[in-house]
């Protein structure tokens, strides 16, 4: 029915040609820090070693999309080079001596202040009801977990963080809000995130942070959280929130 092949190359990931200029690498569908480490290590190796061919690469929980210059290299040759580099990368990961500075940087835990929705303007109450726990327990559960950032996307600076404690798991809203405020801290399924700007959104809002999720400086975009980093939330009062928000506006 079709001539397209699914290239099964190693037991760890498969490669699918998804467009004229893009291939998608897929690992088993799971939220796993170990697997994700492999994905971003491979991403960084590919970006370095194939810099003249790769236009962009996007990592997520279990996938890596590679955009490349299809005019410069055939798809088959690209797949071969990716496979070779992935074998070398696996080797490097298994040798802990090779501890690069980027990996150390990933050990830093980013602290995000949250004014939790204690005045119940948003969804904290609903989430607590759905999970059959108190609002205090939702806050405690949400802020006591260390999350990992698995992907940037949706909007600039929006970071998918996981895994949320199982007790806080709520499905996405059946119909998304047309407006979610800037800095909204929200949860859905196994994930939590901060909305960097006012936007539409279908996750449940449990608080708000005064911390900017990105900076635009000298023509560069610097996200507060990068993929692979660790993140933790901590509760602040309304007074602290307002003070921090004011300071951020200066």
């Amino acid at each position, binding site marked *: *029915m*079709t*001539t*397209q092949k*699914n290239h099964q190359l190693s037991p760890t990931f*498969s490669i*699918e*040609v*998804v*467009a*004229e*200029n*893009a291939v*998608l690498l*897929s690992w088993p*569908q799971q*939220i796993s820090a170990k697997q994700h480490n492999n994905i971003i290590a491979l991403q960084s190796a590919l970006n370095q070693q194939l810099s003249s061919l790769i*236009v*962009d*690469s*996007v*990592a*997520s*929980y*279990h*996938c*890596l*999309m590679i*955009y490349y210059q*299809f*005019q410069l290299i055939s*798809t088959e040759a690209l797949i071969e080079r990716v496979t070779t580099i992935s074998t070398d990368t696996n080797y490097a990961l298994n040798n802990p001596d090779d501890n690069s500075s980027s990996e150390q940087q990933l050990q830093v835990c980013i602290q995000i202040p949250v004014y939790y929705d204690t005045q119940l303007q948003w969804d904290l109450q609903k989430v607590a009801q759905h999970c059959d726990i108190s609002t205090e327990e939702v806050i405690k559960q949400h802020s006591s977990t260390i999350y990992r950032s698995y*992907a*940037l*996307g*949706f*909007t*600039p*600076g*929006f970071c*998918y963080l996981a895994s949320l404690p199982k007790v806080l798991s709520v499905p996405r809203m059946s119909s998304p809000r047309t407006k979610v405020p800037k800095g909204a801290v929200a949860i859905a399924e196994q994930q939590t995130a901060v909305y960097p*700007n*006012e*936007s539409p959104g279908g996750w449940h809002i449990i608080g708000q942070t005064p911390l900017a999720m*990105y900076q*635009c400086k000298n*023509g560069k*975009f610097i*996200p507060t959280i990068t*993929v692979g980093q660790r993140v933790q939330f901590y509760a602040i009062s309304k007074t602290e929130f307002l003070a921090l928000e004011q300071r951020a506006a200066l």
Partner: protein
Amino acid sequence: MMTTNYLEILAINGKASIQDIGRLNTQHLGFSVSGAADEHAYLYANKLIADHYRKIAASDESTQKKCPALEITLGQITLRANTACTVAIAGADCQVKLNETLISNWQCYQLQAGDIIDFAMPKSGLHSYLAVMGGVKGDEKQQAWLSSFAQTENEMALNVIGNKLKAGSKLFFPKQELLTATTAQKQSLKSSKQLTFFEPNAPELFYPQSQITLRFIASTLFLQFPPKKQSAFLATNYVISPDSNRMGYRLALKNRPIPKNKILADKLRENCVLSKPVTYGMIQFPTNEQPIILMKERQTMGGYPVLGSIMQTDLFRLSQMRPGQGVTFSLTNYQQAQQQLQAFYKKFI
């Protein structure tokens, strides 16, 4: 010193934005690629200017080919040139008037200070392009943001790619100078006139009439369908639904009601849980089985099951189609899609 080299928007009733080839290398930060909805018409307009000047001035106009241009959606915009400039128009035919006189689409023109150019609502198609020699920007000091001038509606809040265009907005262009042109050639540009006339490959023929068959590269998921289900999808007639835009095209079933038998089995659907990176032209298949086709202003990640990706040259065609027009799908492979795209770019770049 403030430059006076600009076109001013006198009135606008549709939508307009500045677009180029897009922000190709920042999806890893969450930025939409964005860029001209219809690359064919956008590149065509820039090429008209580039070719014309290569002819008369033997200058290297390769930079012209990807210059930011004005993308106009559903026409209805009037602009005035504050100083003389060379422009080209392409895309949906807006019965453009230059100082009240109807002018031809897909051509290049010399404008003089005070000239008024007016786009009516097109009878068919959606996007028209107004390219200017050297490109346009919304602010004379505006720098490219992450290597592109493309304006993305959902990213305007970042305040890095200029303001939303409205009446009174100015589109700045560089000084219109032909360094290597002769005095006679320069003199010839002192009146408003059409600069190009002959077009051997009628550009309109690139576009389908009222129905389009979109050729797509099947996803691994689609290849797991039983043949009967694959055929069912390929035999379905869809129509473009009204809530389609630069971000995505939503399709609805042409012959309602929705059939009882699902195309995508629940068991296969349940395998698609986690969000993953998405690309231009991917066919998302939500639970209601009404496909969504991801277009230029798409987000970078998506969670819906994906049936495949439409070849890019067909997406340029689709971008000009309107709600109510018909869509069907047929299979292709990436080799064919690459050949088509490569041949397409050879014409322009």
